[in-house]
């Protein structure tokens, strides 16, 4: 099942990101443009299951929820329990939503060939995980952190064409970013491997000189 993975970081809560994803507009784009059938949302322990259900119910009334513990999907997603629901957007796109508090298998999920796009806060951990897995990444900087430092790295890396960033944490901005990221990936698929290496995210190389610094510093 083609999957979109959404994560908002473990340290500070960022409900605006989840609210932006769980909207009719964004889910329609994920399904129609990206072909996503399942949206896995790692909402963090600071965002409760009830909150997750409330957010979904606000957009899709009369949704039926299923809670699961220790089943095969939990093991696949590396989490002890999950909450899931089937929803249909106003234009008739149906999606399967999965909410999890915390996954210990983020890199495995991202590396899965079925994971076609990742939506994350602009924390370096999430960004580097997505780069390592070479999955198209759309970041939503969390503006409520010290010095708004997520914005800075998001802008810089998007200028380097390694990801697409939204300006504000809103569904409108996220929708635009997801569409432009998709265009980007389509263009990249027509390029040679060498050209596309600048567009498709990939692990950043670590310079050998830092090794020398470490070796020389580790004296008695």
């Amino acid at each position, binding site marked *: 099942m083609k999957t979109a993975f959404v994560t908002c970081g473990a*340290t500070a809560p960022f409900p605006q990101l989840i609210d932006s994803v769980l909207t009719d507009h964004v889910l329609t784009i994920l399904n129609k443009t990206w072909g996503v059938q399942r949206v896995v949302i790692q909402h963090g322990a600071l965002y409760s299951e009830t909150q997750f259900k409330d957010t979904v119910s606000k957009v899709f009334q009369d949704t039926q929820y299923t809670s699961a513990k220790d089943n095969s999907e939990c093991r696949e997603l590396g989490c002890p329990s999950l909450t899931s629901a089937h929803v249909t957007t106003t234009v008739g796109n149906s999606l399967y939503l999965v909410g999890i508090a915390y996954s210990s298998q983020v890199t495995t999920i991202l590396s899965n060939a079925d994971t076609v796009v990742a939506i994350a806060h602009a*924390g370096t951990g999430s960004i580097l*995980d997505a780069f390592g897995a070479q999955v198209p990444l759309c970041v939503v900087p969390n503006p409520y952190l010290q010095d708004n430092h997520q914005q800075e*790295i998001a802008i810089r890396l998007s200028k380097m064409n390694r990801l697409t960033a939204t300006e504000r944490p809103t569904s409108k901005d996220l929708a635009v970013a997801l569409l432009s990221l998709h265009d980007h990936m389509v263009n990249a698929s027509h390029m040679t491997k060498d050209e596309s290496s600048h567009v498709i995210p990939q692990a950043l190389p670590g*310079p050998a000189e830092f090794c020398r610094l*470490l070796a*020389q510093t580790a004296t*008695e």
Partner: protein
Amino acid sequence: MLVILSAISLILFALVITRLILILPFFKVDRNGKERQALMENGNKAQPRQIEHQTVRQKDKPLHLFVFLGSGGHTGEMLRILQNYDSVLFYEPKNEGTRIQTILYLGYSDLQSLEKFKDFISNYKYKNNMIINYVQFIKARNVNANMINSLISISKTLFYSFKQILRIKLQMLNNPHLVLLNGPGTCCIITLWFKVFEFFLIGSSSNIVYVESLARITSLSMTGKILYYLADKFVVQWEDLKQTICPRALYYGILV
């Protein structure tokens, strides 16, 4: 009497200043950095040279390595550093003999980081060449915490980490050692104690390498601002920082 007292205090004062000059980073001449910079300025792309392991393990002693896993992104970046630079931090013994090559002191303050580390180490290729000592610290400051709460947690961390760092410092004495930090706040306290012990244990070194977060491009984090004046090697991952606000920093490109 007064004259003698003032003379003694003056001598003490001079000694303290001299000691501070010796242990603080601003007065150290970084020959390697200059050499490297000259190389870069010549337009040569510096060739990754073979690292001479002998310079690290002169007497076949194991490396005592202290690493602090901050939280969230800090932990993520640190684990990537351990992964990317494993050849120098943990390397395989030359022959099949199972000599322990690295004694790792793993500092952490949240269980999620510990879990991540255990997950990481279970697949790590050098896991059999090291002894791991887990050291739990109290988080010095929570994200977006207010002033009073921060003050309380900082003093708690200061108090409890004194003994922990002292024990590690004593183990490191006369052994090759390295302290690898990348934030957040708790690192300031760890550095502070290492430097205080270095001050009193004449002849010892702290060997603290601080790597500023990849997220910092035009400004330093709070921890970075403090450790710029304390860490022995201060490394940034974006050139903008070195060019604008911290010229003494080392820049090698993105490390994580």
